[in-house]
Each structure stands twice: as structure tokens, then as C-alpha cells.
């Protein structure tokens, strides 16, 4: 059986290796200018330069800080909104339509207003990211709470649980899988929006690095940045996935959906 798994893994490497070889071939023969398609070796060198000069680390740190701030704020607000709408029918009735209406507009749309009211500094970026992170979190929290099995709610009634106890000991644990999915969606949205915001309102950060490089046609820098962004996103998602696994050991046979 292990042989099969090894074979599978190798198969997965076939396409990337083919592409790598083709890439190398094409650049060696200079079928495309180095500006358009930098050779792999150059990519590695550029990455090395960016790494050692500290440029990469600095910009990544700035972007990550923004993500952290925006994500935390957005996820918290989203969670609260979701809980409020899921727990009190009145809130859901009045706030729900408004929320659903506003969330139809892709976060991009709010850029002009945010820029107008908050300028193009840090506040604007963090507000923008929070706005985007808020929505998936609110939706998933709401979904999770709405899906709590009535059977369990009856258990709460039978054991004379008060509103608060019902929320903390039954509703939220039951909604936890959904909430954690919301957290991951929120984070990936935040990560995307950091890059987006930095493309639009230039200042330091990895998005800015890309914009500057683009204007100077430094394709190698842009490519390296793209790879770094992808890797970071992947790592963050994996980490969150690990945390999710820790919390949900009880989930083996229970699926509220």
C-alpha cells in the first residue's frame, strides 16, 4: 500500500516538474524577454536578495500586522452580529434585511467612502479589512446558531437552563464547527483584502512591493511576492485548521448539518 501512496505523490509532481522544465527551456532560448518571464534561477536570486536585504521581512510584517488587526476586529464584530441575529428574533427581523442588503455589495464598493472618511492611512486599511472579514464570520455564526438541533434545545428546557446558560453550553458548542469555518473564511478574506488595499492605497506592505515592482516591470519581484503571499496564506489557513481540529475532537460522528 505504501508503494501506492508514493506513486501517487510522485504523480502529483509530474505536472509541476514538466512546467518547471518548460519554463527553464523557454527562458534559456530567450523566447520571451526576461522582463516578461524571468528564468527560475533569477527568481531564486531575487528572492534571496529580498530576503537578505530585509525588504521582504519588513513588508510582510507590515502586511501581517494589518491582517491581524483587521481580522481580529472584523471577526469579533462579525461574531457578535451573528450571535445577536441568531439569538434574538427581533434583532434578526430588523437588522437582518439591512445586513443582507449591505453584504450584497462587494467590499470593493465601499472603498471610495472609506477613503473619503478615513483617508488612505492605516485606519482606512484596517477598517476596510474588518469590513470584509466581518461578513463571512457573521453569516457562518448565524448559520451555526440557526442550525442548533431543537432536540438539544429541549434538553436545555428540561434542565431549566437560563438564556445565558443555554447560549454558552448548548448553542455555541453546537454552532462551533460552523463558527470555525467562518473564522477561516474570514481570515482568507482578510488576507486577500490586505493585498487589495495595499494595491490601491500605496504605502508599505507586500501589496505595495508588488505595485512598485510592476511599474518598474520587475516581473521577478512580482512573482516572488505572489509566491510569498500564497505561501503565507496557506500556512495561516493550515494553522487555523489545526486549531479547529483541536477544538472539534468530539465531532467524529456528530454533524449538525
Amino acid at each position, binding site marked *: 500500500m505504501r508503494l501506492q501512496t508514493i506513486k501517487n505523490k510522485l504523480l502529483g509532481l509530474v505536472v509541476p516538474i514538466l512546467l518547471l522544465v518548460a519554463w527553464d527551456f523557454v527562458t534559456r532560448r530567450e523566447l520571451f524577454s526576461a522582463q516578461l518571464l524571468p528564468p527560475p534561477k533569477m527568481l531564486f536570486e531575487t528572492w534571496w536578495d529580498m530576503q537578505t536585504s530585509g525588504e521582504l521581512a519588513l513588508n510582510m510584517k507590515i502586511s501581517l500586522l494589518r491582517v491581524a488587526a483587521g481580522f481580529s476586529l472584523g471577526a469579533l464584530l462579525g461574531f457578535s452580529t451573528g450571535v445577536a441575529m441568531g439569538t434574538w428574533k427581533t434583532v434578526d427581523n430588523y437588522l437582518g434585511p439591512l445586513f443582507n442588503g449591505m453584504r450584497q455589495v462587494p467590499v470593493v464598493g465601499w472603498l471610495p467612502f472609506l477613503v473619503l472618511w478615513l483617508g488612505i492611512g492605516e485606519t482606512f486599511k484596517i477598517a476596510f479589512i474588518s469590513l470584509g472579514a466581518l461578513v463571512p464570520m457573521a453569516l457562518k455564526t448565524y448559520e451555526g446558531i440557526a442550525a442548533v438541533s431543537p*432536540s*438539544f434545545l*429541549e*434538553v436545555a*428546557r*428540561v*434542565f*431549566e437552563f437560563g438564556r445565558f446558560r443555554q447560549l454558552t*453550553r*448548548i448553542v455555541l*458548542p*453546537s454552532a*462551533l464547527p460552523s463558527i470555525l469555518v467562518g473564522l477561516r473564511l474570514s481570515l482568507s478574506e482578510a488576507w486577500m483584502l490586505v493585498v487589495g488595499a495595499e494595491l490601491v492605497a500605496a504605502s508599505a506592505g507586500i501589496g505595495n512591493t508588488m505595485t512598485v515592482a510592476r511599474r518598474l516591470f520587475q516581473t521577478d519581484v512580482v512573482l516572488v511576492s505572489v509566491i510569498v503571499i500564497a505561501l503565507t496564506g496557506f500556512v495561516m489557513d493550515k494553522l487555523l485548521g489545526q486549531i479547529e481540529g483541536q477544538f472539534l*475532537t*468530539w*465531532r*467524529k*460522528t*456528530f454533524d449538525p448539518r
Partner: protein
Amino acid sequence: MEEDVPLKPEEEGMEKQGTLRVNNLNKHFRSSSQDVKVLDDINLTVQPGEFISIVGQSGCGKTTFLRLVVGLESNYQGEILLDDKRLNGPDLKRGVVFQDHRLLPWLTVEKNVGLGLKNARNEETRRSVQEHIELVGLKGYEKHYPHQLSGGMSQRAAIARALVNRPKILMLDEPLGALDALTRMYMHQELERIWKQEGITMIMVTHDVDEAIFLSDRIVIMSSRPGTIKKIIPVKLARPRDRAGADFLRIKEEVLKEFHLHTETPFSYSI
């Protein structure tokens, strides 16, 4: 409509300890298109410490009746009194074991059993929880999660959870319905043992006639549409009861007759 069993003189003093009186209970189910009478003039008194089974076919309203007594449904006509006090929603004095055990999947057996206890941290409650876990025969499984238990074990945990609050009466809604036949027979013995040990009033809804005869002091037979009490059959056999015994089979014949059914080997007296 049946008369209930008159009080024995020596039991009168104990009346306070979990006597359930149901007087003229009626319940309708109203939807936009129909008005169905689910329960029709139910009268029943359950003495403290009794084991009552309610037997009937699916849809006869026995589960509705049970849910009314537990307090999960309201909106009825008539009276339901526990120790002469009207019901007002669910409370811990009336415990319930559901057919689907409804253990919270994210809590251990321990935490599940202690769910209803107000102060789950102090020594006393912890001891009580442990006692009840052992009572239902789940010693050693305190830290297990529900998904690690079998159906029978989960149901036992649910029973412990209901009992740990020392309710006056315990309602069981087809508690063994989800278990296989062999586990069910084993659970019959367990239920009887627990009942004897705790001395608690139990009202069980079931469609399994053997189960009812094995466990109950009295069997309440409900007919369906509308749900009403057809007959109450006392079961005055010594415990533990022999499923193949003559008396057992006689009572079984009596019960099945009410449903126009017969046992495979009809038993008749010859004097």
C-alpha cells in the same frame, strides 16, 4: 375511560412524594386546514414509586401525553398536577429520558450527567454524579465522549443524567426503541434494577408489550385517534418476571386483545 386505582390506606401519607394526577386532559392540534383532537379526556393518577407503562400504536398521542406532562408542550384543556400543584413548563422535578439519548456530543459522560446540576464543581455534586454513573453501570466511562459509546451505553448515561437531579417522577419516551433486541432485553433488567434502587416513580411510553409487562405495575392502554385511555391493566406479578410464565402470557394476551391481536400460542385456562 378507566377508573384509577384507589389509594391504599398505608400509602395515603406518602401522597406528597410525587403523585401525578391528570384530570380531564384534552388536547387539540390546530392547523390552518384542520382541527384534530389528539387527546380525549385522559384521567390518570400515578402513585409514588409506581412503574407505569403507556402502550399504544404509533400516532395515538402517547408521546404527546408524555411531552405535556414533562412540560415541553402546553396549550391543553384539563389539569395536570404534580403533588397537587399545577405544572408550569419543564422543571427538574420531572425528569425525562428521550428516545434519542440527546447527550451533548461535545461533553464527556461526566459532564453530560452533571448537566442539570447547578453547582457542578463542588465535592458533593461530583460524588453524586459518580454515584449515578455507577448506578447505571457505566463506571470507568466517565471521561468518554458520546460518540465513543454504544447505543445502550448512551441511553444509560441519559438515564443517569435524568436521575442525578433527584426528580419526583421520571418520564421515559420509548427509551429503548433505538436499541437492538438483545440490548433491549439487557436494559430491561437494568431499568428494573435502577428503579428498585432509586424508588422513583417511572412513566414509560412504549409499543413493546413484553417490555411493558416485564417492568410495570400497571399498563395503560391507549387507543388512537383520538388518543384516549382504553383500559388500565394491573400487573400484580412478583419480580423479576418470567417472560415465558403462564401469568405473563395471560396478561400479554389480555393486552394484545385490546389491539385485536393474539399471541402465537393462545393460552386458555382449564379449571
